[in-house]
């Protein structure tokens, strides 16, 4: 058994895959590359491949972590080369290294995620942007003690959840040449997280300019973090 952790980028060419689409993409690429992916035991075996945190549809990613298990010995370099040549343009393998089998699952360590939302560079969108207005709206939003988000998920379980505590940091990024951008550092992971899309909608509402919502932004996930505030996955020593 080999455990390999990897980092990948997702670019605009494949921005619109859901989490499950992306997992399926990896599994099919592994099969094309004839890499011996391990399957769980049991009645309904599933492939032992996991992305650290589901990447929402439409969100681009830089150095997004994932991990998988092989039934045989597979060297990280070989994995990177073989899988890399069977991935489509739009998903790019950046790094891969072997990991100890007994470390906890990546997914269980995710505590926070850093997003960067850039305004799309279209004239009709750029004209909606008023930095002062957005800046004031953002500080108003952050001063609130309660931001209620509809609870998603299981059927018959409706209600609202206060997501304000999930916003660790949110600020407008000064950028003279590039497009207007907002950085969001949000709680994430199995113990609960905040959707960046939801906050952008809230922000649009707060500015009173609803046309600044959702699809106007290009969202990047720039990193996943652990509870100690360190990056979830960094390269081991010597790499």
């Amino acid at each position, binding site marked *: 058994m080999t455990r390999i952790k990897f980092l990948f980028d997702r670019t*605009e*060419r494949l921005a*619109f895959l859901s989490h499950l689409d992306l997992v399926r993409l990896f599994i099919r*690429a592994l*099969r*094309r590359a*004839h890499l011996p992916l391990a399957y769980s035991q049991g*009645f309904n075996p599933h492939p032992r491949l996991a992305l650290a945190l589901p990447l929402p549809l439409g969100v681009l990613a830089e150095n997004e972590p994932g991990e998988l298990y092989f039934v045989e010995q597979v060297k990280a370099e070989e994995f990177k080369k073989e899988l890399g040549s069977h991935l489509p343009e739009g998903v790019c393998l950046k790094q891969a290294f072997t990991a100890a089998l007994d470390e906890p699952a990546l997914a269980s360590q995710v505590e926070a995620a850093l997003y960067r939302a850039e305004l799309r560079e*279209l004239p009709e969108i750029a004209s909606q942007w008023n930095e002062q207005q957005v800046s004031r709206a953002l500080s108003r939003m952050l001063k609130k003690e309660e931001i209620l988000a509809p609870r998603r998920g299981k059927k018959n379980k409706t209600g609202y959840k206060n997501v304000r505590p999930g916003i660790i940091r949110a600020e407008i990024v000064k950028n003279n040449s590039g497009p207007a951008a907002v950085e969001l550092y949000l709680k994430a992971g199995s113990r609960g997280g905040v959707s960046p899309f939801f906050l952008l909608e809230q922000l649009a509402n707060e500015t009173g300019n609803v046309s600044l919502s959702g699809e106007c932004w290009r969202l990047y996930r720039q990193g996943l973090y652990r509870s100690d505030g360190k990056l979830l996955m960094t390269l081991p020593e010597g790499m």
Partner: protein
Amino acid sequence: MITNSEKLQYILAGVQKPARYQGNEWNAVHKNHSLVRIKMAFAFPDLYEVGMSNQGLKILYEAVNCHDDLLLERVFAPDLDMESKLREYGHPLFALESGASLADFDAVGFSLQYELSYTNVLNMLDLAGIPLYSSERRETDPLVIGGGPCVFNPEPLAPFFDLFILGEAEDALPLVLHELANLKDKGADRSEILKALALLDGVYIPAHYKPYYSEEGRFQGLEYLGPPGREVVVKQKMDSLDLAPYPTTPVVSYIQTVHDRAVVELFRGCARGCRFCQAGYIFRPVRRRSPEKIIDLAEKLITSTGYDEISLSSLSSSDYPHLDSLLEKLNQTMKKNPVRCSLPSLRLDSYSIDLADRLHGGRRGSLTFAPEAATERLRAVIKKNIDENDIYTALDSAVEAGWQGFKLYFMIGLPTETDKDVESILTLCRAIRERYKAKVKGSFRLSVSVSTFVPKANTPFQYEPQITVAEIKRRQQILINGFRKIKGIDFSWHDAETSYLEAVFARGDRRLAPLLEKAFRLGCRFDGWSDHFDFNKWEQAFTETGIDGSEHAGRKFTPEDYLPWAHLDCGIDREIFIREHYLAHTECDDGGSAR
């Protein structure tokens, strides 16, 4: 890439399932537009998930793109939300590979699989700014081509198309495109191009035929105006499947499609000859692929796609000789990269059950069968040659093998059908439930789906009228009332108006074109989808165009009548249809007094 334009990303970020319009799938073919002689877009008038499951698309994608000087890209019908965004932003409908507007192609070829996708055809042309009518197209507009089973009666669509290809197009389409390239090089204009293409086998140019109607409004045949000697268009077919091009590197979708698996076609055609079944006639003769070729293709497909499931497809898979040994060999070959095999279209017999048994390792869900009719008499009329004993023997062995339930398909409205035949669906299903509910471990699931017979061109039942909508509803009510009293059966039925419209367009002639345009203008889209189908709009379209649909759906043809599709030769002697039609009625005990 044009598809990556900021504007398109913005549009896609605001629609449902944007991956449908994203392209860039594994094995998608990207060619430089300036380096090919002819650019064609393959347009599928239904959603991406449906179109990407179509085997014809995969075959033609390979058959055209294997030529360096030709290019075939894909486009599917946009869902309603995408359509309104495209219209709102004035963004033309585009092909997935290059993002280029359909209007920038030399040809746009529609796959015509189902009559209720016709409004989508018009919508797709409109979204690309291509004039709907062939007669209105300019020299710069693409040639609009139609192919697929509906071309066996394409008459309601005739004025919208420049040409149709009748039959199997894997050889014919590249020939047409190469000839088009030569003609364009010579500077031929549109009408010269059509005259020249009319000389190719299987090519039907609707503008070369002028229809006549009697004063009572009956279709009286067509006058041929094209180049001499091509009055009758003959269906194209591949002689050998082993030599036919086959897509071993099909495009692999990221989102789940209707059939999300590798497909190897075992054979084409069907020898059974059920009298209602158009596929059983138009895909004749039966041509088998050799086991060696099948295994070779399966291996290549799995390697190139990464699928973990392979479907061995055909119209009646258990008719493939020595299928068991083929499956054995396939398993041997695939040991390193295990795949699941599936067999669609199983017959109702124990051999088929035995095969299905071997294919399913673990969990046993439901098995699907189509007895089509519930009485022996009616099954004889439609030539579905199974008796009740066959049904029970097959179901017995399925239950023994551990299957937990069945899905059964029936049809109502078949020629000579009486209320007794309809009621027998209830009797048969009740008996099946009684027989197995105790034998099955856990709960026995029985679902019954009842569709309405639609007479199709080039079948023995092409002469038969469809029963009226009111009569469809009356017979459905017998079933609805009956199944309400039988516990534990999940009963579903097809919408009567949908089947009616299908019959209108399956049997109609060119006078229906204005109706189609009107329905499209009134907003009809995705008429085959019950959540989109709006019969009120269709009724309005009938009223405003003054067309009586029942004249087409409910018309009984005699062998002496002119059939709207008589100039399209499906390769079967007309006498065979007449004889089979006659035989169907002699199977009927009561001499057809029921009608």
